[in-house]
């Protein structure tokens, strides 16, 4: 039984968890969410665009 539940349980822990906060409801907590940019993906896009602009002249 344990071996069937161990892997899903570990995956559940890896995937995420719920964070609960407590505090004064009159003083809401502000969370600054930053968008994480995958530089590698962006570089591929930039390279494709610059290749297109140069038309193979470089």
């Amino acid at each position, binding site marked *: *039984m344990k071996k*069937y*539940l161990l*892997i*899903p*349980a570990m*995956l*559940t822990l890896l*995937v*995420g968890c719920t964070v609960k906060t407590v505090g004064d409801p009159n003083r809401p907590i502000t969370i600054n969410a*930053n*968008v*994480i*940019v*995958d*530089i*590698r*993906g*962006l*570089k*591929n*896009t*930039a*390279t494709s*665009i*610059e290749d*297109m*602009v*140069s*038309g193979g*002249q*470089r």
Partner: protein
Amino acid sequence: MKYKFLAAFTLMICMMSMPFSLQAETYDIKEMTPEVKNALDARTARFGELQSLKAQGIIGENNGGLVEVRKSSPVGSGLAQEENADRMVIYQAIINQNGLGLNGLGKVQAVFAEVQRDKARSGDFIQLPSGQWTQK
């Protein structure tokens, strides 16, 4: 049997909720707006002249993904202004169409600058991330 089913079901739920960040993100121009198309066409049309000015040391590639005049030249100055305006249209489209937010511009500019440094020809002026100018 009951536990096998439970385990398989839980595993399936976990796999479905796996964050997409595990895959490489793609940032594309998802919608070719007339502004973006014009900017790309204009950049393609002036590419040869821009390369010529770079070869003469009049224009260099700065670390913000834009061109910069290195030697005083009316032609170079006008061309740099037009080129930079078109580049900003493209950068802004990537930011808007991929939801990169307010901090996206700096990242996009830095990445394009890196690509320009990689693609620069020998002798072209390039600005390093530190701000220092050098000839490739």
